[in-house]
């Protein structure tokens, strides 16, 4: 399997050969930032189109197909449209907070995006507490959403933000507990460590029953965390116009839209990191030929494929279930998912201490 670190070390040696270390580091940081920006925007565009195609498919429609092959250039038209719209300044809003909110939402999603395991040797931010860092940063997005709703000086945005806040903090607990279950099994919190630990079998297989329960809990909680249907009551369009971003216009609104789709990718990426082996190819013990063939597929393709697969499931939810009410939403988390998650965590801890899991 191709190791991307060959490229990075070669490039690093090339730079340090002709210039001092600090300059080389700065240049590398700028390049990483540019790549990050490009990957973030392109993936957001792809995801917006992906959701439209999947939705069209579920509804037996044809979806966008006029602009470019299968409508693939539609998104560029949409971005340009959004860019050339006027950014309206509200008179009565809390101006500073109103402008600050999109920064918080986007920063949270960009930083978590940079933590994902992109492939072998393509890990960008790699703390030894990686997965914990991800949860910590992603909760910053809630602050952005609350600020957006509060500062817009509109009743709909306030209610939308409050609902969104209550929903996101509630479901964050289940996400945290599902992560804990896997950290318990792997014994490491670093992202590379988690991926390496799944060399001989993804956690969903080696952790068997508790890992599968944790995966189900994680996917449900992640759907709620990204404010997607059936948990899209923060932006229930027939009740609240558009929820917390009603008062934003043009590209200002576009940021929330962008972050929403990227968050869908991020939660799917974390799901594939925790349960489906990150960029690790599928290996079946004993099937040497099969494993070798799987190793030929590049690691980035594995990671993206898994993330897109999990996203497909999350998009599927939207068309299979009707929107929940707020009391049902809170009851589902506090009375079902969280107690089940806690019990599941204890079961996993017992299994690990007794060694009743498949050796990873």
């Amino acid at each position, binding site marked *: 399997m191709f190791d991307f670190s060959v490229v*990075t070390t070669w490039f690093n040696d090339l730079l340090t050969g002709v210039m001092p270390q600090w300059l080389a*580091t700065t240049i590398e940081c700028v390049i990483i930032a540019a790549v990050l920006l490009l990957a973030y925007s392109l993936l957001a565009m792809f995801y917006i189109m992906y959701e439209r195609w999947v939705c069209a498919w579920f509804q037996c429609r044809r979806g966008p197909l006029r602009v470019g092959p299968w409508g693939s250039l539609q998104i560029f038209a949409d971005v340009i449209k959004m860019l050339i719209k006027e950014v309206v300044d509200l*008179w009565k809003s809390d101006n500073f907070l109103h402008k600050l909110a999109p920064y918080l939402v986007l920063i949270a999603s*960009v930083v978590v995006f940079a933590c994902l395991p992109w492939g072998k040797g393509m890990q960008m931010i790699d703390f030894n507490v990686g997965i914990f860092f991800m949860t910590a940063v992603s909760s910053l997005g809630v602050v952005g959403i609350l600020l957006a709703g509060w500062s817009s000086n509109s009743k709909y945005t306030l209610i939308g933000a409050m609902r969104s806040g209550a929903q996101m903090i509630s479901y964050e607990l289940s996400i945290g507990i599902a992560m804990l279950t896997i950290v318990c099994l792997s014994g490491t919190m670093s992202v590379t460590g988690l991926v390496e630990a799944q060399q001989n079998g993804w956690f969903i297989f080696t952790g068997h029953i508790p890992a599968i329960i944790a995966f189900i809990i994680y996917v449900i909680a992640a759907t709620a965390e990204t404010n997607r249907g059936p948990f899209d009551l923060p932006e229930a369009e027939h009740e609240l116009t558009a929820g917390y971003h009603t008062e934003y216009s043009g590209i200002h609104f576009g940021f929330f839209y962008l972050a929403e789709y990227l968050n869908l990718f991020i939660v799917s990426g974390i799901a594939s990191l925790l349960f489906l082996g990150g960029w690790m190819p599928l290996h079946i013990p004993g099937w040497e030929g099969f494993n070798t063939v799987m190793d030929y597929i590049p690691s980035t393709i594995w990671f993206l494929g898994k993330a897109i697969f999990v996203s497909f499931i999350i998009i599927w939810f939207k068309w299979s279930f009707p929107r929940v009410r707020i009391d049902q939403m809170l009851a589902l988390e506090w009375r079902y998912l969280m107690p089940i998650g806690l019990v599941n965590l204890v079961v996993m801890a017992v299994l690990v201490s007794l060694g009743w899991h498949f050796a990873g």
Partner: protein
Amino acid sequence: MVLLGIQSTTLAVTAVLTGVVLVFAALLIARLIGPRSYTKRKGETYECGIPTRGESMAQFHVGYYLFAILFLMFDVETVFLFPWAAISKSLGTTTLLAVGTFLFILVLGLAYAWKKGALRWK
């Protein structure tokens, strides 16, 4: 990247700056190429199309606070459990008992809140 010898903290700061640049640059482009106009009612709150009545930064349902407080309790619990989970493999069954006691006390708190009807949306 670890392989480049750059600290993860530096890269995290880079990622934060990338986010800032993304928002700032896009807003700048929008300001430059977008139209600007001024009309009498332009900056009014849109809400749902008709003029807003009353104060908008108003009081809201107290139930949200209740869930925020409950969240705080369980989120701090997660913070405590993460270090344990990371080394739980090497620790024996005794620690399992200790963590079980800790979780039991927390679950008692949840049960109390449940009994009091705090988990029911009114």
